[in-house]
């Protein structure tokens, strides 16, 4: 589904990604973790070409991103993305947030888009809020709407960029529940997150990044199983975040 091949990216002289390669199969759930500044958000944003890269290629469902002939907006419309800061459109109602891209990008009718949007809103448990504006919702609610908005486009894969990092602790679970449900339904997912509980529960593979490189890329059981078999940097990281 996603094939990342030797991605290299520089900001000026500073190399943020060095030879990153991995594969994501259909239906797989991948958790990407690592210390801040390790390039994990940058890597995931390369997958839908929100961040350009200078070397290597990423192929998403048969479409190459590095190919200059690729219609990037069209490719992005098939890749759902959820952001750390939700990024709902504050000038639109929740319903409009859910329908605008369906109508303008996919060319669906307003009725069809609204029906689809409201179905998904119900699925994330927020039907009562359809007519509100994003500012009237809590962070957790906004993030659930953002997930519904991405799902409304019928994506072939979902990307999550630290979806719970900006949330109050009480609201983390309501978002993770939606993500767990998605994973169980067989959605292909790539999640940058520090929620190791989520990783243990639904991830198929865990990728650990440090200094712009993929240091570990292994099955979940292997990753959490024998900590001593992990690289030194991954051990340090796991010790810190699994301590409590």
């Amino acid at each position, binding site marked *: 589904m996603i094939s990342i091949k030797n991605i290299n990216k520089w900001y000026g002289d500073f190399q943020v990604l060095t030879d990153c390669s991995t594969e994501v199969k259909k239906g797989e759930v991948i958790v990407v973790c690592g210390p801040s500044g390790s390039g994990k958000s940058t890597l995931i*944003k390369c997958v*839908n070409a*929100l961040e350009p890269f200078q070397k290597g290629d990423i192929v998403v469902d048969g479409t190459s991103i590095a190919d200059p002939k690729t219609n990037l*907006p*069209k*490719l*992005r*419309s*098939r*890749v*759902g*993305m959820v*952001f750390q*800061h939700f*990024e*709902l*459109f*504050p*000038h639109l109602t929740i319903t409009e947030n859910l329908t*605008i*891209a369906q109508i*303008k*990008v*996919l060319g669906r009718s307003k009725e069809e888009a609204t029906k689809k949007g409201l179905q998904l809103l119900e699925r994330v448990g927020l039907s009562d809020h359809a007519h509100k504006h994003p500012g009237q919702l809590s962070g957790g609610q906004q993030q659930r709407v953002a997930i519904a*908005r*991405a799902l409304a*486009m019928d994506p072939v894969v979902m990307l999550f960029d630290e979806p719970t990092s900006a949330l109050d602790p009480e609201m983390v679970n309501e978002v993770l529940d939606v993500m767990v449900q998605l994973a169980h339904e067989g959605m292909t997912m790539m999640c940058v997150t520090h929620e190791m509980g989520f990783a243990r529960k639904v991830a198929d593979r865990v990728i650990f990044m440090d200094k712009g490189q993929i240091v570990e890329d292994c099955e979940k059981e292997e990753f959490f199983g024998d900590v001593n078999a992990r690289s030194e940097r991954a051990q340090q990281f796991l010790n810190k975040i699994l301590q409590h």
Partner: protein
Amino acid sequence: MDFSGVIPAIPGMWNGMLMTLQLMVMGIVGGIIIGTILALMRLSSNKLASRLAGAYVNYFRSIPLLLVITWFYLAVPFVLRWITGEDTPIGAFTSCVVAFMMFEAAYFCEIVRAGVQSISRGQMGAAQALGMTYGQMMRLIILPQAFRKMTPLLLQQSIILFQDTSLVYTVGLVDFLNSARSSGDIIGRSNEFLIVAGLVYFTISFAASRLVKFMQKRLAV
């Protein structure tokens, strides 16, 4: 002081006010449209477009409005004749409207640019991630939010233009100030008429700027 002569002159001054408002509205609408296009050029990654728009803005912000008005009135017909070989008078009104649009566009460009830049980059990312093209993103997501934030500044600039329309007296257009002054000159009561004109300008501009303050407070919430 004798203000009794003002009453019979009101219809003439009203016509002048209509001229002022007409010039202002056309200047604002044209200025915002051209200004938005200039702002998008300035913000675009196309270096040539960005530099052209930048040069335009810097040029028009560095010269007096009075010069732009007289230049359009005197020089443009001259240039047109030079190009087409025949007399093409464009008239005082048209030349003033065009001058206002072009001049205000430089200021509106900077307001729109600041407005667009005040919208977080994440909004652009979200719009793009949903598959929107650059045009869709600007039209549906970024500009509507930017204009909402800019409304007070746009109104502020409009109040300035409302006052600046009085400069059209140089090319003989009868706006509000010009009609008040000539009405006063006819009956030898210039001072009274200028006081009245001043009060009218003050009342309208002051009321409008109060409205802006009120809107700022409401939009800030």
